[in-house]
């Protein structure tokens, strides 16, 4: 019963702070709201028996990625953003697009009854670190290695873009 309340609470927090993120005028608040969303999502992971993932999620997102955002905002000194200029019909189009997307996606995903599990009974241990490790270092060894190429590429690229021209 407690978990059920936890689900509703975390969902509410996640959605509310996500909304706060997009509506806040101050980008620092936006970042903080997003971090709050991420914490709520981590809570969901915890509820879903993905404890290790929840920890990694907090470390990577809240600890690294969002700090990077915050760092950039501080460095550019963007305390307040200039007002966005938007025409009315553009606003209308945005609302319409968002609303319609929500509508069609909800219409689609409500059909979970179609998912028929034939394989095995739910294995609640799948989120444990040893199971994850086995899968990652056995089946997913190749993508794991390839991630290093991805990072190397991103790193070279980021350095290339950031370094001063030697002109």
């Amino acid at each position, binding site marked *: 019963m407690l978990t059920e309340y936890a689900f509703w609470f975390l969902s509410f927090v996640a959605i509310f702070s996500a909304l706060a993120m997009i509506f806040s005028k101050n980008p620092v608040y936006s970042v903080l709201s997003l971090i709050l969303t991420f914490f709520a999502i981590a809570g969901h992971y915890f509820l879903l028996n993905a404890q290790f993932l929840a920890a990694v999620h907090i470390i990577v997102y809240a600890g690294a990625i969002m700090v990077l955002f915050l760092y950039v905002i501080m460095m550019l000194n963007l305390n307040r953003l200039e007002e966005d200029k938007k025409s009315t019909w553009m606003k209308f189009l*945005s609302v319409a*697009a968002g609303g*319609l*997307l929500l509508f*069609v*996606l909800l*219409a*689609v995903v409500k059909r979970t009854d179609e998912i028929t599990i034939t394989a095995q009974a739910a294995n609640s241990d799948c989120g444990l670190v040893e199971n994850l490790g086995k899968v990652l270092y056995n089946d997913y060894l190749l993508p794991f290695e390839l991630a290093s190429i991805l990072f190397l590429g991103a790193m070279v690229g980021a350095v290339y873009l950031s370094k001063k021209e030697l002109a």
Partner: protein
Amino acid sequence: MEKLVSLIPVFPLVGFLYIIFLGKGLSKNTIGAIGSGAIFLAFITSILVFTTQLHGANPTIVKVIDWITTPKFDIDISFIVDPLSTIYLLFITGVGFLIHVYSIGYMHEDEGFNRFIAYLNLFVFFMLILVLGDSYAMMFVGWEGVGVCSFMLIGFWYKDMANNDAAKKAFIINRIGDLGLILGMCMIFFHTGTLRYDDLFISESAASGLHGWDLHLAAIFLFIGAMGKSAQIPLHTWLPDAMAGPTPVSALIHAATMVTAGIYMVARSSAIFSASDVASDVVMWAGILTAILGATIALTQNDIKKVLAYSTVSQLGLMFTALGMGAYSIAVFHVITHAFFKALLFLGSGSVIHAMGGEQDIRRMGGLKSHLPITHITFLIGTIAISGIPPLAGFFSKDQIIAVAFEENMIMFVLASVVSALTAFYMFRLYFLTFRGSFRGTHEQEHHLHESPKVMTIPLIVLAVLSIFGGFMGFPHAVGHAMHVPHWLDHFLENTVEMEVLDMSVGTESILMILATVIALISMYIAYTKYMKNGELALEDDEITSSTHQTLASKYYIDELYEKIIRRPVDAIAQFARNVVEPKIIDELVKQVSLIPSGLGSVAKAAQNGKLVMYVLAMIAGLIILLSTLI
């Protein structure tokens, strides 16, 4: 023997490659010898292949290589040997050879000589592919190839912007035609599952899979292709402009061979066309209208090559009229005789232009008879032949078109006779103004007048002989039957194309022949009185207009214009077709059509406004639409 056919296109291709890649250090004569030698070898081989078809039609498919194999559909490179293709082979390589030889003399001083001979070889190669291919797909390859060659040769003197424009125009208008051909091919393929003549017409008649409006549409699309290549209304406008190319090009491509590709295609598809009365009527009417338009415009042109160009348009129109009436073999007959005398006339005009130092305006010529004896005689023969005076080649073929018209459709008969009369008139006008009377050019030009070298006159003589005797291959049926002279060509083509059997008594046919001759002679006499008796005055004389006015029945809306044309000969080149039909109607139409994309473009432009949010919106909208198909 039939296997030799695969060698025929190889000769010009090798010639082309050799001249382009290895021809740099060679002398012009060597290049000329290689170029014309290649065509000559092709000609000899063609004769050998032709002999296999002489005794009874015996269509053979010679497979060279498997080319593309896709499920349900494969194309090989293979050639068809049958009477229709071999007879085309003969005159393409034969006339082509003569024109190559002639070009050696004509282009000798040009710095682009090597390039010119190489292009001519390439052209012959593609033309051979066009007629030899055993399917519409192969024909299309040749079709596009000759188009490209024509484009390169019209713009041969590319330093002059006008030539480039003419080349571009020819290319673009031809693309419109090609579109028709592609659509036609698609329809045929869609309904029959094959593009090979063998399956369509010969061994099993897959063409019968087409019927009703599918058939009509397919035939009309094919005909649109033919319209582009063979310069029929309203796609005819490129041909006169194409005269910007060197004269041998006009002779080879724009009179004797490439422009007759449309006729070839319709004759090849005779089974389709004869099954579709709608398409046949379209062909017939487009043909006769083109014939009249071409002939009337030719009356007023003062550029020697333009007269011949409009005359070509007009003659092609007559051929299509014959096709439309179902007389496929007679159209092919006219193609052949026309190739002889029109090549002769063009080469003769080239010889005149050569002698005049590049002058093309017949008002500044005259009296060339004594200076250019061989050119004069051969040109006269060509003129008589095209005018339809017996017993020269043009008489037989044109008379048979008129005879068919008499049987089939009286309107066509009258119109074709009028075209025939106009032809005789403008051709003799051309002849008199050029060769008779006294010289009207500058002294310097007069001083330089000279007969062309042998390398140019010999082809003229050969073509003149062909123009005289070429007509006997198709001696009129009834009269011929009475005189025991067979209509050789009809027998030859019997099993290849659909036949129109003329059921005509000897008397009717003789009367028609005499009538045609009389019409031609009267026209000739009118031209004579107008341009010889009254001498130079004829050029600007108003009075004679009225008599010409009488001759051309007032049915034609073009008459009024004709008045103006005679009154203002200086502006003669800027004429009806060029002033009204072309810029106002056709160009305007093209312009209007081109507005469609720019109209659509401005809508798309509004979305593509550079704003990121707009692009995101487009993506999300796309996603929403995709997903909404699920609800």
